[in-house]
């Protein structure tokens, strides 16, 4: 249980009294709390959301077990917690609700403003546990399980399967698909119609950093792209080695179309 990650996108970003327009990322361990709101000298908040319609102390996020709880400290406003991957799945957290448990791995917390716009930030809960598919019954609590568990219905898993596809089909022992190739490969999937290259990259980063905690050598500057590739290769190597992605998962991908893939398929 490593906790949750809160990400306030660029624009609202002001954290712990330090003004900056940059995006803010905050990590909370189990039991830790972060307050959010407009903040002031007397009501300090860890996540500052700079909008006049938002209370000075608008709410609180508390990490509990493998999930988190949202307290709505506003007396008038309801907040929404959306599951960006849930096809419209959301929760409404009414005013003064204390400690509403949030079941999503990915959440977007939306606060209303006066200008027909909203202020939103994201909360990721990478600790959600999934039982192994090859479990043999018995009490699951004392069972030996894979300690790195993935949601096989999540978008990141689809991207992971796409990353692993060439190796699973024994087409190419070396090449791992590039981001544009993944966007292209998943285009036909109903959940990926509007998938951008940027989203693919951030899903891969999430997998590497939060889910698998891959130890990759840190490099910067011109080597950055190479490091990205190294990360992809590391992910693919690990998930195949430890059986987190298997042949049966190829069925999740949309059917392959286009001459290039076919040719490669027959040639390989």
């Amino acid at each position: 249980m490593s906790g949750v990650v809160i990400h306030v996108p660029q624009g609202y970003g002001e954290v712990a009294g330090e003004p900056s327009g940059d995006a803010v990322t905050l990590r909370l361990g189990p039991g830790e709390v972060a307050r959010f709101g407009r903040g002031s000298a007397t009501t300090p908040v860890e996540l500052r959301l700079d909008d006049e319609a938002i209370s000075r102390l608008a709410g609180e996020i508390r990490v509990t077990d493998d999930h988190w709880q949202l307290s709505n400290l506003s007396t008038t406003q309801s907040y929404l917690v959306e599951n960006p991957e849930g096809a419209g799945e959301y929760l409404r957290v009414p005013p003064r609700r204390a400690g509403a448990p949030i079941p999503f791995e990915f959440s977007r917390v939306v606060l209303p403003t006066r200008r027909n716009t909203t202020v939103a930030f994201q909360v990721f809960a990478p600790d959600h546990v999934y039982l192994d598919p090859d479990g043999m019954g018995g009490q699951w609590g004392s069972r030996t399980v894979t300690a790195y568990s993935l949601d096989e219905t999540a978008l990141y898993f689809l991207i992971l399967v796409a990353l692993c596809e060439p190796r699973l089909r024994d087409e190419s022992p070396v090449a791992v698909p590039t981001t544009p190739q993944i966007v292209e490969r998943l285009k036909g999937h109903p959940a990926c119609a509007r998938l951008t290259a940027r989203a693919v990259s951030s899903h891969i980063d999430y997998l590497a950093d939060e889910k698998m905690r891959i130890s990759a050598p840190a490099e910067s500057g011109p080597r950055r792209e190479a490091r990205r590739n190294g990360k992809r290769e590391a992910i693919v190597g690990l998930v195949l080695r430890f059986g987190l992605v298997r042949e049966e998962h190829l069925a999740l991908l949309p059917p392959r179309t286009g001459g290039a893939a076919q040719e490669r398929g027959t040639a390989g």
Partner: protein
Amino acid sequence: MHRPADTSGSDRTELLPPGYRVSRWEVTESIGAGGWATVHAGRLVEGDADEQEAVALKVLPTAGLAPRQARKVAETARREVEFGRRSSHPRLIRLLDTVVLSEPDHPFLDGAIVLVMERAERSLRDLLDAGVSEAEGARLVTEICEGLAHLHRSGWVHGDLKPDNILLMADGSVKLSDFGLVTELTGTHGTHGYAPPMGTFDYLPPERWKAPLGEQGVEVRPSADIWALGITIHELFASGASPFPGATPMARGAATQEYADGRAPLRLDGAVPPFWRALTADCLAPTHAARAEHTAESLLARIAERPPTETDAPAPSGRPGVRRLGRRRAAFVTLAVCAVGATIWPHVEGGTASGATAAEPPGRIRVFNADQGCRGRTDKDPQCSLGLAIDPMRPYTVDNVVPTRVWHGDELAVDCWLAAGMQIIDEADTHSAEWYRVRLPRDSGRPTAWLPAVRTKDRPAVPDCPAPTPAR
């Protein structure tokens, strides 16, 4: 295109029927299903008289699995077999043979790997609900430690120690089993090895929750087994209760993390007898570094040298259900009001007592915290704070302390000394009925409060206090 069937159904838990023949053994009954295998009881039907008759047959099916899943099962079996071939010790379950089933007509069984092992009577898990006496618990822990010490000495980490994998033979002796995650220590100094990213949540050390996944798996060190041992000892003496609160393994995992990050203290169950409580706390040291000094060997030595009274006596603290407040730090034990005695103390300046709260104090003392863990800290952790009494003649309880807290190393201005207040015993068992009246900061609401003399090593020459007026 061939797609494997959904393997989550009950078909995979299908058991070998009684009478089924596996090489020289025959299945007698099913024992149970674990995470990746089913276990059956078997008996020898063809062999020498000196061979063990009763065996356990652990079946790892590979059919119906995708090739890579099958590889995972094979890897598990390979670890067990390789380990079994190279290790033999009275405290480890012995692997007698391995058989690969060939059953073309039974796709589920075809290709399954069967490990033929010594048969145990039951597991330690079966013993937990009933609880054990301290003497019996001591024997069990000793034997578990013997097994672990042998493993670690031979350069292996068990990797999945838990009551389910600690087996009890018909004669009651302990043997460790389930070597599917056993890891050989590598590296230049043999300090760590790499294991598949698997484990049992309740027994994973806190560092594992944040461990990075490398090419070879996750780093595993013997201290991981020591942590699991600590959880197991606690469960043994506390009727199966984990030392970490929570209804689910995830909740307990989160509590483990809070403890390791220093946000929550370790609260061991009051049913764990004192000697074992201390031992458990050491096994559950929050970091690898702090745990590393406690090895299976050193624990064995400690158990061997423990005071005999604790095993002989029925140990009142061993009663299950008696919970003690877990506030180890900053907790005083108040015994009784001491008899009022004559005050004999060297007066330095006889007449200053009346005007003592003003101007320069007659003396200064430095606060001393008997809890060693608190002495090195400077972060003013509330866990390490000490209280000051309002009335030194009344029991030292929550409603008799001022809001102002003090920490180890704080310097306080002292007005005077009281010889016979409430008797105080500190964590190091130092008794004293002496108190110092100390001055509080200007905005504390009260001008003075009382510090028990056990809370300082200084003995300043200050005047006697006038008999304190009851605070209420």
